[in-house]
């Protein structure tokens, strides 16, 4: 798993990273990605969503379904969702295993 220069379990920090990732998928976009704008409005097609999900999952090391992107359809909401998943996973690692 990649080591990050930020804490991916903090939504605000993850949000900034996701904005940069998404910008890679939108080469024709002239302004910055708005974390509160609906992703559908950026014209991402289903293949781009799969690529984005696979890319983010591979980099973050937590499951990211293309469907989850649709269920949390802004970068801000996606960041919140993924940060809580990552925090839960980190918490589970630290807790002693139940017998």
């Amino acid at each position: 798993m990649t080591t990050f220069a930020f804490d991916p379990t903090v939504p605000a920090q993850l949000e900034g990273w996701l904005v940069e990732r998404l910008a890679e998928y939108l080469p024709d976009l002239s302004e910055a990605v708005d974390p509160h704008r609906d992703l559908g409005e950026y014209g991402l097609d289903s293949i781009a969503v799969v690529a984005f999900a696979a890319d983010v999952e591979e980099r973050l090391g937590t499951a990211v379904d293309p469907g989850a992107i649709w269920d949390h359809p802004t970068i801000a909401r996606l960041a919140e969702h993924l940060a809580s998943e990552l925090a839960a996973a980190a918490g589970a690692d630290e807790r002693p295993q139940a017998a």
Partner: protein
Amino acid sequence: MTGIWSRTDHLEKLLGDPWDAGNPAGFAAAVAADEREETAAAAEAALDDFGLHAEFVPRALGGRLERVDDMVELMRSVYRRDPALGLGRGGQLLPTVHVWTAGSPEQRREAAGLLLDNRRITCAVHELAHGNDISASSFAARRADDGALRLHGRKESISNFDRADALVVLARTNESNGPRSHSLLFFGADLLDPARVRVLPRFRSVGMRGLRLGGMAADGLEVPGSALLGAEGTGVDTVVRAFQVTRIAFPAMSTAVLDTALRVTLHHTRGRVLYGRPAAALPIVRTTLAEAFADLLVCEALCRAATRALQVCPQAGSVHAPTVKYLVAGLLTDAVERLSTVMGSEFYRRDGEHAVFQKLARDIRPVAFAHIARAACLSALLPQLPGLLGRSRRDPAPAPDALFAAEADLPALDLPGLRSVAGGRDPLAASLPTVLDEELPSAVRPLAEDHVRAFAALTETGTALRPPQLAIDAEVPVRRLAARYTVALAAAACLGVHRTAASGDFLARPEWLVAALTRLSAVERPSGAQLPPEIEDALLEELGDRYDRGLSFGLSARPYA
């Protein structure tokens, strides 16, 4: 009837010797039925006696489906006699994988009950207007005030639509675009009110003519809200995950078509004397036979790894499904085509003892476009390519033996656990950078090095791709990178099968692996190397021996009736 080998033996016995002209489930009967655009009635009856549909029902629901690899191996006994019979029956998987993946306990019991009673379910996902772009499907289910759903639109090219007892249908439940706009429905064919649904005329086809392709045009057909399979809006997500199983299973079953094509070609060329010697002794015939045998082993090695991976590392299904569908379909259709050239005029005859060949040559074609087209497979693979390659370079690891070994225990099949992306995790790709660490026969090593070098070059290029290059309008050279990835996975699978083969087994010998890796090099480089003469000799000796002993030509070398 529990173990797979007792089941395959039993089914072979029920269906009998396919060469026997008097066998009502043999080649002659299959060809005669094909002329009538049907399947042989006696063969259908034998499959009902066997209770074949139980092979598609999970054990927990009373069926015999525990392992996808076993189900595939059993179905090869059907495919090798008549691919249309195989697809017609195996086609029960298309609707039911969705029920097993997303259905409620009640829906799962209902589907299982139908199949265990030898009845049929059909799958209406496809619409001719939208091809492989299923998220554009326009067949609509609109919610009425009373909670019922009213269906409007056309579904086409549906196998056995007219004899189905129930249907699984993909319908648009939201007018907006995106992956949450469709839902799956499961309902009985008794709801098909003739006043509200028109049965479309049968679609006629070049091959697989025994398969009845139908369709429907619905205008306000009402089904209850309880027909929803999974939550509303999850249809495309379920289809994308569940079809991983079938996109691997159908090409994997189809290797048996090449087995029969090879067997018929051997039968013909051994018996025919040309220029004073058996045709089978002519160099061009020898080379074609040896290459086709090697291709068959390559296909089955990749299929074994991919079917096992569905249970060993299910997250890789989204990668292995398009890989198998692309590469295996391509190798099989090419091999049958090349065999037809050495069949001479016999490949063209609709009568005589080799008439089944022309049927196979037509029946093999849909493997390359039906269910999903090979081109669409590359489009599906491409978005994941940079992540897969990047991770294989960062975290190389030998692949689990359970993907390759003849006997291996597998974790339980967990269809709801299939994922629509792999997050870079593909055990076959990750194994390639490690294969040279193993002990390899001296004849194999340079070929393995060649594949590892090619994969390293692919990784270099592929990890540098930018997201916009991965879209549906990707340039041809970029799409070729995805094709090269499929070749790399097949090479890894062949190396794995060789590594885990029991000593003394043909698969533990270097010759077939030399042939397999050489053939795989030729996929991307059509002017690739020929098989060395001693390799060709070894393959033809094995092929002839299996032919004489009535054994399958695939990995299992199991007895055929």
